[in-house]
């Protein structure tokens, strides 16, 4: 029986979907290795402890809470030291992080501090014999590797959407701990956080993504994409490299080989040809819809549903229809 650690990502005092999924993944591993405890680490500005209950709901037996004004924002150096110290003290079989920007920054630091093995960006996790195994997309998603870690602690980062949080209430006993390193002493300092548009859903977390390509012709026309995303209500917006190169959208919205890798429930590709470098970032989406005026466009080869047509004609109609469907609920 082995205990498993989870780093529960939060932002602005709130646990992220990523944090709930990390705890869920840890719960699954703990259950598969004989039903040990899940210990979550939750860090943030004073007040973040109130979020511990949400981690208990998805399977945390213990929540270690670090509250510090210097942790209102992600502080890599302090958090890596704190996570490493907790993992060392806890003697865990595995430690789960999220494969988000934050998690991908944090997990390798912790791995190196512990000289532990890290299996990154897992789309599936499990136990085979004595080893922790994960499935990890490689070669721009064209190959899937099975990575296996025999020694403890096995560190892993889990891609958003790889596990679905489900009610599995545990005690979630809160233990307050101190940061292992003072955030104020970190060598790298965040001097400014330029926030994106408020209320926008993170690309990684969004159940629906509406992405636009060069077929939209101009930056202004992205209002079609924004409006469709709005109609869904739970959608983020994405773009191709052709679009970010033009400066129509910021690079942070780029999806693909050199952009973000996403896996939403629904991906709507608007005026996107479907170049393989773009597919590298979205091919694991559950349902793909494509709207393109060229019926030979490669995007139709991987789309579940396609409409051959002009985006300026189809997208406004779809926006209206989605709005109507949502209103009918």
């Amino acid at each position, binding site marked *: 029986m082995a205990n498993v650690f989870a780093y529960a990502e939060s932002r*602005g005092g709130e646990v992220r979907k990523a944090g709930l999924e990390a705890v869920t993944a840890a719960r699954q591993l703990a259950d598969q290795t004989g039903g040990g405890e899940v210990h979550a680490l939750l860090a943030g500005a004073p007040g973040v402890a109130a979020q511990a209950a949400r981690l208990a709901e998805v399977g945390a037996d213990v929540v270690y809470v670090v509250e510090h004004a210097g942790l209102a924002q992600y502080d890599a150096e302090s958090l890596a030291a704190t996570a490493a110290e907790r993992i060392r003290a806890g003697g865990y079989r595995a430690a789960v992080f999220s494969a988000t920007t934050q998690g991908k920054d944090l997990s*390798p*630091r912790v791995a190196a501090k512990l000289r532990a093995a890290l299996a990154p960006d897992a789309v599936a996790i499990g136990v085979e014999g004595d080893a922790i195994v994960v499935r990890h997309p490689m070669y721009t998603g064209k190959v899937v590797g099975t990575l296996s870690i*025999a020694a403890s602690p096995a560190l892993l980062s889990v891609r958003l959407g790889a596990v679905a949080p489900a009610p599995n209430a545990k005690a979630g006993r809160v233990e307050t701990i101190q940061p292992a390193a003072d955030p104020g002493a970190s060598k790298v300092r965040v001097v400014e956080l330029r926030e994106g548009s408020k209320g926008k859903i993170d690309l990684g977390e969004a159940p629906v993504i509406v992405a636009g390509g060069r077929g939209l012709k101009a930056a202004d026309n992205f209002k079609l994409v924004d409006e469709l995303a709005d109609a869904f209500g739970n959608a983020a917006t994405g773009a191709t490299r052709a679009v*970010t190169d033009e400066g129509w959208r910021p690079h942070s919205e780029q999806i693909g080989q050199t952009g973000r890798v996403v896996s939403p429930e629904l991906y709507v590709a608007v005026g996107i040809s479907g170049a393989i470098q773009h597919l590298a970032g979205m091919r694991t989406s559950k349902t*793909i819809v494509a709207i393109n005026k060229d019926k030979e466009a490669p995007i139709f080869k991987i789309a579940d549903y396609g409409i*051959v047509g002009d985006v300026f004609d189809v997208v406004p109609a779809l926006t209206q229809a989605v709005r109507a469907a949502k209103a009918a609920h």
Partner: protein
Amino acid sequence: MKIAVCIKRVPVMEVKFAIAKDGASVDETGLKYDVNDFDLWAVEAALQLNEKNAPGEVTVISLGPDAASEQIRKALSMGADKGVLLKADKVPGDAFAVAEALAAELKAGAYDVILFGKKSIDFDNSATGAMVGELLGLPVVTGVSKLEIAGGKGTAHRAVEGGVEVLEFPLPAIVTVDEGLNKERLPSLKGIMAAKKKPLETKPAQLGGAGVTVSKMELPPERAAGRIVGEGAAAVPELVRLLQSEAKVL
């Protein structure tokens, strides 16, 4: 400034991969290779930093087989000054093993800045740069899309969930490069000629054991061919119906 850039030899991805007989690697037959995309931007960043803060020296380091000297030569032909090949016939999938070998080489170099790509597009570990930072006890900034160095200190922008962080850090430091920082220059004919005479040292990579083993590689299941619902706005009602009743996403 003394700058080091770690670059990886990776296959050109516009192919259909096959799995090798061992079942745990890709079949290399017929593959072409290039410098990892992100690492080209790291090389470009190094060259630009030194053009601004001359004089300086850019060293490129790659851990890989003999053939990785081609990728080092490419960086030299772009304008880097010297290369080091840490020879390993097989590059481990374990980022920490690679990080240790790179750190062993970087430790003695007294570099002001060490640049990495944000990720390698073949193994996609997104880990090596940050691990080397820990091993060398240096500050690390990952996924940088804007970088300035002046007066012994650096300023960088990085996209995070929900916005962009502006960061300051002291030198020496490790920076991993995201797309958007720059566009890499093409090697000039003159650069290609000059690169042939630049120093390229080869030594064995100090690889320890790997904690992560790649026990299997497979091709992902093909997506079942989809269907064209119809043409133009007239097809929208049918699409919405399918999204509701079949895909159940609306």
